[in-house]
């Protein structure tokens, strides 16, 4: 009996959340005179109609998983990383620089080197915030927000100056972008004709590795202990400050790797806008996935779907591009609320008791 009521409770909340998410979006859609049911139909079904849609979802899923994993490591270890966007950009620069500097290396050597460079670049950028926090107690929210802007300028400077494609200068268009990476630095596509690349395998592999790292190794134990209760960790002999710095460095490495994979797998050269807001979406994906790889992977896929689906509404229904943000925002707000309700045993037990009192049965 109680079982039924519990299911009922969960179902009610999920329905309410869905209604709220749809409702908020519907308000704005109605204000601009677009069909509400059509919009949602496009978002949720259109991407699955063909291989193209599915692979494009997965193309977004890759960086979201990677950034999300890094964020999960940092949050679990007690430090908030809002700087993935900047870390990603530095990763992009580092990966590109290495690929362009060593164009003659064979693929088996160059590609790993390029990815490693990306990770190291991100790690370097993350380490600034990490060390500032560990050494000087600078709040990481402040430093990562500021470092994002600094990275963006650095990125622009290098792509407009030292790293610009000489062809851009020759033909005089001067668009800030690097030369095309040598083929040996390309991550291959999985299916011809689609952009989906082997970065997906790397991301999934790393998800497994992160799980092992955080939950099956002494290192992960230490990091999680420092993040869960710094005081107790200190008494147990764990150097919490080092853990914070290490967490930030690792989170940076993941963001940097995400950048490197985007460059080698999708764009094949550094351009402005590669990070594409993944730094922020990654935070959402990580928290949404319960800061656990097993949650992050599906959550990244879901947000990939949302990005693709909402973007499709622009073409299918002439919904303004900004509507993507409205829908994402509404979904995030509704689902996080619902999740807390679902996970709150106090509210659930109370509701179950109420239902039992109303409809009879179930006492324990």
């Amino acid at each position, binding site marked *: 009996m109680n079982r039924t009521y519990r299911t009922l409770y969960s179902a009610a909340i999920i329905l309410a959340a869905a209604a709220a998410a749809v409702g908020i979006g519907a308000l704005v859609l109605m204000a601009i005179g677009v069909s509400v049911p059509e919009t949602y139909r496009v978002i949720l079904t259109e991407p699955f109609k063909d291989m193209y849609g599915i692979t494009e979802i997965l193309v977004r899923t890759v960086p979201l998983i990677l950034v999300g994993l890094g964020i999960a490591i940092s949050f679990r270890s007690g430090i908030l990383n809002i700087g993935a966007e900047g870390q990603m950009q530095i990763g992009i620069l580092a990966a590109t620089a290495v690929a362009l500097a060593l164009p003659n290396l064979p693929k088996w050597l160059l590609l790993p080197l390029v990815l490693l460079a990306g990770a190291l670049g991100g790690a370097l950028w993350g380490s600034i915030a990490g060390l500032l926090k560990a050494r000087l107690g600078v709040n990481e929210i402040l430093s990562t927000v500021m470092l994002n802007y600094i990275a963006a300028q650095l990125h622009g400077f290098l792509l*407009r100056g030292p790293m610009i494609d000489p062809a851009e200068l020759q*033909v005089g*268009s001067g*668009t800030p*972008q690097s030369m095309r990476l040598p083929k040996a630095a390309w991550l291959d596509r999985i299916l011809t004709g689609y*952009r989906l690349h082997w970065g997906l395998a790397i991301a999934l592999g790393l998800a497994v590795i992160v799980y092992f790292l955080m939950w099956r190794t002494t290192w992960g134990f230490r990091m999680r202990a420092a993040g869960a209760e710094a005081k107790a960790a200190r008494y147990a002999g764990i150097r919490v400050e080092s853990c914070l710095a290490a967490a930030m460095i690792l989170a940076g490495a993941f963001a940097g790797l995400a950048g490197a994979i985007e460059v080698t797998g999708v764009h094949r050269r550094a*351009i402005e*806008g590669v990070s*594409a807001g993944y730094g922020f979406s990654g935070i959402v994906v990580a928290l949404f996935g319960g800061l656990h790889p097993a949650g992050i992977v599906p959550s990244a896929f879901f947000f990939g779907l949302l990005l693709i689906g909402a973007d499709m509404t622009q073409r299918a229904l002439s919904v303004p*591009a900004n509507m993507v943000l409205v829908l994402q925002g509404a979904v995030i707000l509704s689902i996080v609320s619902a999740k807390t309700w679902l996970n709150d045993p106090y509210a659930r037990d109370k509701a179950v008791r109420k239902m039992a009192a109303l409809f009879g049965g179930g006492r324990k």
Partner: protein
Amino acid sequence: LVLGTAVAAPKAKVKIALIIESTVDDKGWGQAMHDAIVAVQKKYGASLIEYGYSEKMKPVDAGSAARQYVAKGYDIVIGHGAQFKNLILEMADEFPKTTFAFGTSGEIGPKNVFTYMPESEETGYINGVIAGLVTKTNIIGVVGPVDGGDAARYNRGFVLGAKASNPKAEVKVAHTGSFGDFVKAAELAHTFVKGGADVLTGSAQQALGALRAVAEYKDKPIWWLGQDTAQLAIPESYKVIAAASYDYAAVIEQLIDKRQAGTLGGQSLPLTFKNGGFVYEFNDKVGPVLSAAVRKAAEKAKADITAGALAINWKDVKY
């Protein structure tokens, strides 16, 4: 002579897709192209020209959108910005039957890719000539977004023009570091004015912020030179002595025409005064500051440029 030649009306329905990083109403880069396509569509009718656009496209989104357009049978896909170069080249390879285009670029692409390149140093030069003549303080300010693309060409042409008409003039160039930060552009314009500049110019969406700032000096002789004729139609236009614009309509018509004739790409289409890729308008409402002499000098520069009598070595300019 690539643009400006006679083109034939499309015989069958042509589907054109536009992909831009800003919006189609940004009073700048994106809108210029959008307006041109709409104008062409108006000219031939919606039954002959079908048009779809995707805004706010980051490079990765642009990839999705472009593939979707191709899948829906669009004939011409335009990535309006050189950041889409990669994507276009890659897609061109996969979809050899579709015509792709991107700009700014002067490269000659594969056989189904057109490039286009506004040589905006030309408009910059004319604006610069006016600025040099109009300035009283001999300080001229350029509010740049970032130092790249057509903005970089425009700015350098502007510097050359100003120097040509007034060797004593000092042209100062500064950047906000962003295409869309209107507030910072306004701040930069104020900084210029406080620093003695009395003629300003700027490009990209953000320039509007700078123009708004200039308009705040209502009764002071502070002037603006526009890189978008849309600026002549807004209330702040009383500060705008003259403005240039890109006219992509010719580019679009060429794309349609050439495709029809079986040329899917492999050419670069520059935009110049000579081929009608630019429009230039004076603003008589600004009053005596646009004296006959000033106007004449500008007209002369334009004529020289159009005739090819004036070489603008914008690449040599350092600032």
